[in-house]
């Protein structure tokens, strides 16, 4: 099996994460980071490894107990069924709320205000969720356990 040699960019990223670049090289690398997505992803991956190594601690006995309980069929079933029921119930409640508003004897402008308010909040939530979804892989700190 032939050895795998890291590319120049990978070596640069390692040196950057380890703070081994001099001032000018660091600035130049940071400039590239802002433009080259693959390089930023490489730095995030290295930071994630560094974090895992830095925060690694011996497992505690309770970790194994949690794992056993969490993986037991009764727990998996109860949690899954609980979430499904909660989500379906939430959708049902939202439907009831919409129905009540539609049936209520209120002026059109009040209905429009409610629709605008709810629609606006939904759009804001979706924009925040979309932003989070787009950067989810660039956050190395999600790998920290405790």
């Amino acid at each position: 099996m032939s050895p795998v040699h890291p590319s120049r960019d990978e070596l640069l990223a390692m040196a950057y994460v380890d703070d081994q670049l001099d001032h000018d090289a660091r600035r130049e690398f940071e400039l590239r980071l802002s433009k080259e997505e693959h390089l930023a992803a490489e730095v995030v991956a290295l930071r994630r490894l560094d974090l895992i190594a830095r925060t690694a601690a011996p497992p505690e006995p309770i970790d194994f107990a949690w794992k056993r309980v969490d993986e037991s069929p009764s727990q998996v079933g109860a949690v899954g069924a609980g979430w499904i029921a909660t989500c379906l119930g939430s959708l049902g409640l939202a439907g009831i709320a919409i129905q009540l508003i539609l049936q209520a004897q209120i002026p059109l402008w009040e209905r429009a205000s409610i629709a605008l308010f709810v629609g606006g909040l939904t759009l804001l939530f979706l924009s925040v969720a979309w932003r989070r979804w787009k950067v989810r892989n660039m956050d190395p700190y999600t790998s920290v356990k405790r």
Partner: protein
Amino acid sequence: MKNVYTTDHIPGKTVTESLGLVRGSSVRARHLGRDISAFFKNVVGGEVEEYTKLLAEAREQALDRMVAEAEAKGADAIVGVRFCGTEIQSGAAEMLAYGTAVRTRADQS
């Protein structure tokens, strides 16, 4: 830079230059699903792992930001490091790490 100390002095080294205060802060939250699980754990007691993890994430991010600021100043160590938490938002972990960035040289034995 791996030289982060809570003490003001570093054994075997002498501080040759102080570069001033460096700090890093982080505010993080988990998602609603984890908050709901944490709420029920709050009812029955025991460790709330969701928030243990949340606090650890915020702590490490704040630490890294402080170190990054020190590196940008050309420091090779940070002394007198402290952590503190604040209360901005319920269900979120807010951590501030701060210390003094310094340059050091090894003591001659």
